[in-house]
């Protein structure tokens, strides 16, 4: 599933530049993840970078956006047609 940023977010922005898909941006009060751009880092890393870097555990898997690894990999290819997936 795509990740979403919960209300735990302190808007520190530590996640913004970690995202390899540039899916994270500043919202009105907290930061937000564009679910159409989130591959949970599939194609780039073994772990989801935003969740890993966040000091307050704000990014959580979004139960409303359950996606399989295959779906996430397909999303990666669509977003980055000229890139080879790493780690997978």
């Amino acid at each position, binding site marked *: 599933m795509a990740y979403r940023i919960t209300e*735990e977010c*302190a808007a520190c922005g530590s996640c913004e*530049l970690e995202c390899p898909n540039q899916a994270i941006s500043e919202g009105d009060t907290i930061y937000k993840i564009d679910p159409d751009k989130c591959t949970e880092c599939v194609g780039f890393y073994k772990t989801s970078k935003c969740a890993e870097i966040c*000091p307050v555990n704000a990014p959580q898997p979004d139960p409303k956006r359950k996606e399989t690894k295959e779906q996430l990999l397909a999303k990666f290819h669509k977003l980055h047609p000229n890139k080879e997936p790493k780690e997978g």
Partner: protein
Amino acid sequence: MKYDVVVVGGGPGGLVAAKTAAEDGLKVLLIERKKNLTEVNRTCGQTFFLAGKYKGATESGIYCYRDPAKVEIAPDTNRFVYPQGFAIDYKGPIVPYYNTYHFSPSGYRIGKYPDGNEDPYGFFYDKETLLACLMAQAEKAGAEVRQGTIGLRAEDTGRNVRIVVRSGAAEEVIEAKYAVAADGNDSVTVESLGLNRNRPLLAPPLKVAGYIMEGVEGYPRNCWLSFCIPSISPRTDILMFMVAGGRMMVVAGPAEGSLQPKAMIENFMKHPTYAWWFKHARICRETACTIHMRLPIKVPAVGNVVVVGDAGAPYETLIQGAMASGHLAIKAIEKEVSGQNGYAEYVNWWQNAFEFNDPTFFKTTARYMFMNTLCTDEDVDFLYRLFEGRVGVSQLIISRNLELVKEGRPDLYNKLKEKGVDRLGLDVGDVWKGK
């Protein structure tokens, strides 16, 4: 070329750079990724320490910015006055810093300076007000400031610098003759220019959080407070300090396994010794940040790029260092433009003004962590009670008087001696040999 200088990052360093450049007649653009540059959500100590009075590595294990900058308090505007002959105005709340107290779990305390000291060693300020002041000054001088614009990567072509930026969904390339990399800890600008080649990460990312609060009572005002409670925070002390304007902040971290910074703060606020301070407290802002600690940059000016502030530091240059950095970076660029070697002077200043550039710095400061990592809550209570009344940094007092622990707690003495705690003071002395 549309701009003489593009400044990446709207913190204190970047804003002073933009202001200085504009005041000197340069066409300057500052980009800041946040929509509101003046909103501070990254945990920050908001204290202007007076170097020369406030001893850094020699006494407290945290580093200092060495230039003896002063603070002038005046009703119309306060000023940060630098020895290089420039000053920065700050119209906003300002509160003198008189002491740092180290507290044990049961409330025994050791003061760094004598009780009742009224000669400031620094000043607490309000960062959001400072940033607003600096932005107003920069824009008044003619700097263009673009908020909500994030620098993604930079390229030094030799003739100029090209920065790829994104604002909303739109990407564009900004060109300028020179770039100032002022985008803070783990700067993307520095990374993309290949300037992190000799700057390995020194530790896993450090996660901290800080709650800014009103209505906190009972605590010593005008001070930094440092709480050594290993059961709550196993690596470093929990910190408390004033935020000028009637508020204060509690900071905890780094995260340790499943122990998260926010939980550490909340546990501290419920701690039996200190909970009464927070009975009527209201949290006004939650702050946090994840810090990447890298070896400092050795040469912060190369080609068409000058690195300012935290972008080149292990993790902080402190407010006084960042602002000086921004000013001096522009002066260095101006010298280069007029055919003189401005970079050499800037690099020399950078290498000497910050204790973190001393070769043994990282070895010595790590040793200051012994209290939380080696001691239990009971150990800390014993030690602080034993040395209560002495004046100085608690770790150094314990280190220099470890023999006195033998009588009451031979087991604790052996534990600390085995880890070389008694030699802590000597190593720090080596750092300052000849200075």
